């Protein structure tokens, strides 16, 4: 029992070590030649368009649900006019980044791992190498760059949509005027909040890219192996996002207190 625990701990450390090395290589491969511009553009398009619908859909409903809960609670205190402030704060700092991060993890991480994993298991990665093409530079770097650009963009879209969802609730169910809601939202659009709201998705993008590519490149054992690493990739990326989100909130809070 203890030995098994020890073994899985050692495995864990080994995997973390490998993942870290791989991640360094990925970041380095974004610089220097050749740069695969058309691959990067294609990935941006696929990631952006592919997740847009999902992000908008979840954003609008989550925003509405949150507004409903908050406005009921606030009404008890007679402070319904603060709804916009709370919404803006909660969405920009937490809900937007997490929703967008998790949706992209579900939609894109699985796709990346499955694609690279099946290339690996059919020797296509070796074939690239044999043609003098570095597969990390060709496949991983464009996905990393595309994610780092697109996840923040999707987060901002998610933020906007969720705030609009709250606005619908505010006007039609809570009977707050549009101006009250929007000016309260605006009040909370401080530098600190927005900074945190953009920093988080950038970090999430790195997490998704590192894990999904690593899992793809280390896929073993045919079709079954691809399935396994795809599942693991989504799972690990989602959990990491939630954990890192907490750490970021904590850290950024202590650094940015004055600006929040």
């Amino acid at each position, binding site marked *: 029992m203890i030995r098994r625990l020890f073994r899985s701990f050692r495995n864990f450390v080994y995997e973390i070590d490998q993942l870290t090395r791989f991640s360094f290589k990925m970041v380095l491969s974004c610089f220097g030649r050749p740069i695969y511009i058309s691959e990067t553009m294609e990935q941006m398009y696929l990631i952006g368009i592919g997740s847009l619908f999902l992000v908008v859909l979840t954003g609008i409903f989550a925003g509405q649900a949150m507004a409903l809960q908050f406005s009921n609670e606030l009404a008890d205190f007679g402070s319904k006019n603060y709804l916009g402030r709370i919404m803006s704060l909660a969405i920009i700092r937490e809900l937007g980044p997490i929703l967008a991060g998790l949706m992209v993890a579900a939609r894109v991480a699985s796709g990346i791992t499955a694609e690279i994993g099946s*290339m690996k298991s*059919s*020797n*296509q990665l*070796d*074939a*690239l*190498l*044999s*043609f*003098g*093409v570095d597969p990390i530079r060709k496949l991983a770097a464009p996905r990393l760059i595309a994610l780092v650009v697109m996840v923040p963009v999707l987060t901002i879209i998610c933020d906007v949509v969720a705030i609009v969802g709250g606005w619908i609730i505010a006007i039609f169910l809570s009977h707050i005027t549009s101006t009250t809601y929007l000016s309260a939202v605006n009040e909370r659009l401080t530098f600190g909040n927005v900074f945190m709201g953009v920093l988080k998705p950038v970090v999430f993008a790195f997490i998704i890219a590192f894990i999904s590519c690593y899992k793809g490149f280390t896929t073993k054992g045919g079709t079954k192996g691809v399935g396994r690493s795809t599942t693991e990739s989504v799972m690990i990326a989602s959990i990491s996002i939630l954990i890192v989100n907490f750490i970021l909130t904590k850290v950024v809070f202590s650094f940015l207190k004055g600006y929040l």
Partner: protein
Amino acid sequence: MIRLDKVNFGYNTEQVLHDVSFHIKPGESRIIMGGSGSGKSTILRLILGLDCPWSGEVYIDGENICGQKLKHLQEIRKQIGMVFQEGALFDSMTIAENVGYYLFEHTKKKESEIEQEARRMLEFVDLDPGIMDKLPEELSGGMRRRVAIARALLSTRPKIMLFDEPTTGLDPQATKNVMNLIRKLRKEENIAVIIVTHQIADALKLADKFVVIQKGRIVFDGDMDELRGSENPEVIKFLAPFRESISDVVKRNFV
């Protein structure tokens, strides 16, 4: 031209190859036979320099392939064409893009020029250039194998070609086509070939020198006569199911 010297190698901590040595002179061909999992594909990976041995050396034209700068490694690799197991065609690209991949990646040639060359190469491997715009998944296994051969040929004009299980999983007709193509490469283009296979009956017809590998160790290295006369119990055991096809081939080719 290719020399492996006491190569030991494995993945992670598991040793796959034990003290593997053999030597292939220019223009010579070899069949590497062995059961699956015996380390045949691994040998090809080492020859291409995709992995480096734990100990021992791999020489291509007298140069140790490990420890070379990437650029120089590319120069060395240009002499070698590799046809991977199942072809390993890039499945998001058309046949034309696959065949011309090396040129797209490493030269500034115009697309139309590359397509022209790809077309010629497809004709060389007896494929209808009409498939140029298809995706690999739309082709049969045998056609994919031939596209992979075309791709390896067009890349670099290699002096030596490595084939990993070129006929495994193909029907008899497709097998025959691929084998004829390999023969054509040897005769008309004077390309040396190394073929890795566990389909011994096919292998015997394709070359005159053989290596038998079992569990990562070379148990035989020599020509057909030596193979037949071998008294190594491992070799006898390995060839036992194929006695008939061996005598068949011997009758046809040597008598």
